[in-house]
């Protein structure tokens, strides 16, 4: 029996607290080696691409495996469609039986934001109050939501190539959180003097320069998710404590992929993984002056852990449609 859940059914049970809790467990399992996580694979087509991400995770809430099949079509918004959408399947690892078949759009956004929040919890200064956001898409929204849960943010500065999008995000932040955000027309003021900087752009050349980054800044680098993408000047990475979500994925598709390929960075300069911080195997921030960077590529285990929580809550509330595909 599989539980089918649409986007709005998922939103009846999904919130950032649930996402932060689930993603913490996912990274704890990653740090403790309780995951089976092959690298994600891609199907490029003419107007976009698909990703298949799959894996297995042993969680306190259960042992689960599954797959996310996500489309990424940059031209979609012009047709009134989402850029990123797809499906998340959960299966019983012991038999292969399908347990859930759900829309992946909001789970993807929330689990990505939650990874940013979790990284901030371990790597940003405790009193971090000023947040700079470079990029104003869907990912920017859940980054802000998650970071507000873990740090006393009072000021948000937004830069986007498209001013209208920055303005829309500003309005949303005021409405949702009562914070008067500021829109800026250059990247520099969204970085200079900020305690936390989030980059969520599809850039293939550095947007953030070394000289804009003050001591003690934490950066969540979320845009790079395929070979050739990068958002940060390599000199920032060279000066920073770099934490990855998963070394194998990050070296190929994360923020570090380009500088590694060019020899501007060596594997020895990577400090560790977020899972190692969550489990306490390595400390997060140890000095108020250090620059820290979290390189996130997104892991299937985040989707599985959050998907399982959503499934459990939906079952508890009788949401969704129970279907036996084998009948």
């Amino acid at each position, binding site marked *: 029996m599989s539980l089918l859940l649409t*986007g709005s059914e998922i939103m009846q049970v999904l919130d950032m607290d649930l996402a932060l809790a689930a993603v913490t467990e996912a990274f704890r399992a990653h740090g403790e080696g309780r995951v089976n996580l*092959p690298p994600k694979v891609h*199907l490029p*087509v003419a107007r976009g691409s698909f990703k298949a991400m799959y894996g297995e995770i042993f969680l306190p809430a259960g042992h689960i495996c599954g797959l996310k*099949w996500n489309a990424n079509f940059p031209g979609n918004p012009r047709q009134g469609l989402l850029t990123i959408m797809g499906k998340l399947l959960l*299966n019983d*690892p012991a038999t*292969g039986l399908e347990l859930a078949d759900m829309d992946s759009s909001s789970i993807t956004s929330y689990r990505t934001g939650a990874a940013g929040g979790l990284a901030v919890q371990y790597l940003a200064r405790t009193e971090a109050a000023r947040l700079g956001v470079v990029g104003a898409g869907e990912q920017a929204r859940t980054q802000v939501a998650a970071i507000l849960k873990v740090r006393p943010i009072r000021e948000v500065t937004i830069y986007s190539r498209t001013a209208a999008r920055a303005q829309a995000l500003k309005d949303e932040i005021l409405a949702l959180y009562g914070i008067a955000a500021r829109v800026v027309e250059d990247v520099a003021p969204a970085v200079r003097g900020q305690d936390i900087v989030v980059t969520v752009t599809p850039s293939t050349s550095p947007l953030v320069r070394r000289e804009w980054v003050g001591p003690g800044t934490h950066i969540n680098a979320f845009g790079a998710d395929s070979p050739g993408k990068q958002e940060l000047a390599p000199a920032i990475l060279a000066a920073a404590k770099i934490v990855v979500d998963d070394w194998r994925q990050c070296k190929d598709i994360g923020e570090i992929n380009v500088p590694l390929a060019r020899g501007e960075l060596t594997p020895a300069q990577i400090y560790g993984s977020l899972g190692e911080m969550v489990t306490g195997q390595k400390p997060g921030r140890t000095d108020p002056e250090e620059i820290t960077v979290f390189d996130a590529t997104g892991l299937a285990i985040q989707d599985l852990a959050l998907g399982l929580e959503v499934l459990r809550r939906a079952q508890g509330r009788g949401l969704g449609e129970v*279907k036996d*595909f084998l009948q």
Partner: protein
Amino acid sequence: MSLVLTGSEVMQVLDMDLALAAAQEAFQAYGEGRVNMPPKSYLTLAKGDFRAMYGEIFLAGGDHICGLKWVNVHPENPARGLLTVMAKVVLNDPDTGLERADMDGTHITNFRTGAAGGLAAQYLARQDAARLGMIGAGAQARTQVAALLKVRPIQEVVVYDRHLAHAQAFADYAMATHGVQARATAAAAEAVRGLDIVVTTTPSSSPVVMREWVSPGTHINAIGADAAGKQELDPNILKAAKIVVDDWAQASHSGEINVPLARGELTPSQIYGSLGEIAAGKKPGRTSPEEITVFDSTGLIIQDLALGFAVYRRALARGLGEVKDFLK
């Protein structure tokens, strides 16, 4: 909007004629370079595995489809009353990524695998092939027989299985379903010697069929090997045969040829070509009544997509299934 189809809904529109037509479409597209098909990926678990297969195909009629199959293999499942292999097929619009169908892929997998065997026999078995040997009597064996009966005048089926009772049950099934002569045997050699077509559908990792059993002119569908380390045929059979693969990248990694290639018992130059090249008319199939031919089948996502799309269209036309908007 996605059309959600369960197994029984799929079976209301799926038959072997549809599967054979879809297989011809899929392999012809492959042979003409109208497919985009990365190799399948594996998730290995304690009690089995999952495979993620995904790709894109431009069909001859102008339709263009992409999608994914997520399929498990759990060998201990039958002991729990569950199927060993269960699958999900998702079809997407290649222009927007929108989901068009979300269907049980279990029957589609069985039928498309049978149909590939039928298509291979159509191009590679002798026209008058009438005697069929089956090595292995599981779910795959059933659709192999169903497809072969569509393309060759099969009159007699000899079935071998490690468990004689399974072989007997299969022989009974073949007689009842298809009205052919069928008998079970406890000796693998008897299901090969003197037969025109031999089908192997076992999960073996050492040869089950020996060179000296195979007569001139035999065609073999080697279906069982689908992971590194698996093999069903004595490497000497391959050395003596015209070998046709479904896909070089997959076959060399996980097909019947994977073990002999890794051991140096076979070289890449000994592979004759792909079923797609033959289906597209780029290479001839059988050219002599005496040659031994082997089709090495690993299973391609484009077979699932072509058949899944045909099922989707028929189901849509008949108002079957549930239309669901997962984005709502």
